[in-house]
């Protein structure tokens, strides 16, 4: 077996081992289903409730992606503004950091009052949770342009706009894509939190309902569905990242023979 194949297989083997151990522990210690359903019970629940899980998963995915899309747009705009302008950096950065320190769950009840129990609360929560890493990363990429490179371009009569498009933006792309991988998982967190607090659809809502009726297998089923969606989206952005900014991760590519 080659090292590359082994590296690719090993996480799946560990996952399989965890599932087996999970099943074994529940069996051996006779843990009641209401406390911890076995792996088989949980996957059975996915099959049993496949209809509602499917529609609610789509709802969660939709709100997450809309919130994430807003976060990308707002995050990029703010990140560029903060990254290229010292006055804007001085004025906004401390506020952004302060805002990011607020536990966003505390905002959800307020958002519910403003937007009501509908898809807007999860969308806004997903946005609010996920835009910050995008701002910080884009701003960092732009603010760390080598001064010599700036001089080379300015000595050619380049405008700030030229420097931004020729150097700043391409240079901050790896930072941007790295932040998308963080932001997409945070967007899922935001959407599910909002659905749990105040939703009438979505996986978070399903889990809340399951919890109130002690349907623990369904809660685990919801958990698995949300995990698969989040990992899937993460993978999409990880692949995009590699495609667009291979130059920034070339040493890693070489190391894995990819």
């Amino acid at each position, binding site marked *: 077996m080659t090292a590359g194949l082994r590296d690719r297989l090993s996480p799946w083997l560990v996952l399989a081992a965890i599932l087996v151990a999970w099943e074994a522990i529940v069996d051996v210690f006779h843990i009641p289903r209401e406390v911890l359903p076995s792996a088989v019970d949980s996957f059975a629940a996915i099959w049993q409730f496949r209809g509602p899980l499917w529609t609610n998963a789509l709802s969660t995915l939709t709100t997450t992606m809309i919130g994430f899309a807003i976060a990308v747009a707002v995050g990029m705009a703010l990140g560029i503004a903060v990254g290229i302008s010292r006055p804007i950096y001085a004025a906004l950065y401390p506020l952004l950091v302060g805002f990011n320190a607020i536990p966003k769950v505390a905002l959800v009840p307020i958002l519910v009052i403003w937007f009501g129990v509908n898809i807007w609360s999860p969308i806004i929560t997903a946005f609010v949770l996920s835009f910050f890493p995008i701002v910080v990363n884009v701003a960092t990429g732009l603010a760390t342009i080598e001064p*010599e490179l700036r*001089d*080379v*371009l*300015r*000595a050619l*009569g380049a405008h700030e706009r030229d420097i931004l498009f020729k150097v700043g933006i*391409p240079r901050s792309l790896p930072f941007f894509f790295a932040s998308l991988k963080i932001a997409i998982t945070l967007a899922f967190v935001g959407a599910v939190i909002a659905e749990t607090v105040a939703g009438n659809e979505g996986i978070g809502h399903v889990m809340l309902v399951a919890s109130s009726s002690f349907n623990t297998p369904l809660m685990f089923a919801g958990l698995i569905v949300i995990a698969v969606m989040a990992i899937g989206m993460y993978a999409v952005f990880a692949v995009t990242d590699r495609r667009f900014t291979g*130059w920034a991760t070339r040493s890693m590519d070489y190391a894995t023979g990819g």
Partner: protein
Amino acid sequence: MTSFIEIDSVDLVYQGRAEAGAGTGTLAVQGASLRVEQGEFVAIVGPSGCGKSTLLKLVAGLIAPSAGTVRVAGERVTRPLKIVGMAFQNATLLPWRNTRENVLLPLEIVEPHRSRFRREKKAYWKAADALLATVGLAGFAERHPWQLSGGMQQRAQLCRALVHEPALLLLDEPFGALDAFTREELWEVLQTLYMQRRCTVMLVTHDLREAAHLADRVFVMSARPGRIIHERTVDIPRPRSLDDTFRPEMVALVHELRDHISRARAAA
């Protein structure tokens, strides 16, 4: 008669960041004056931190003097010039572009190439490859910077600095980070390029042999705040070979420059 570059009693004060009050900046250059003729190759040497690089930035118009005047081609420099090519110790090539695209970067900014660039891309590619061939980088156009050695990156950087045929080439210790053999190879490359183009060159270096070997005139700067304390003409005909650097008059010249710098350092 006016010279191509005229620096007249220039002071430069670097203002500190917000914490510094009024008048507490660092005086980097004080009362510096020098003249460079069109097509001349001059070198500026001096102790480290003496404001050599600052002088280049003043000439390029990247910073404005605190006092005195800088004139290039008869015009007072008040904003970045557009006729300049620059190269630094750090090659600063863009890692997402291959060598050819890096070399062509200035043409995407400078007119008239800027507006022609998209239409005549193939012609520009050819020109870039020809230029790369003259510095010994034939066949490396499609490589990315991280696939080039340090010396090759500097060759590519020289191409980038010259591709738009600037009237003025400003070099800030471009060979400072290279090993001795590579450096001497690049002296030859630079001399050849200079003899082909005869643009005006200002080279900042801390390598006195390099200054003596390449320049028509060498200026010695004092320790900070930098002034021009000595000026020396090197009248050895071009092309100069590496063997010329060991000729007695060249060795004596390097010694003389060395003396001035030691005294400047001691005075500081």
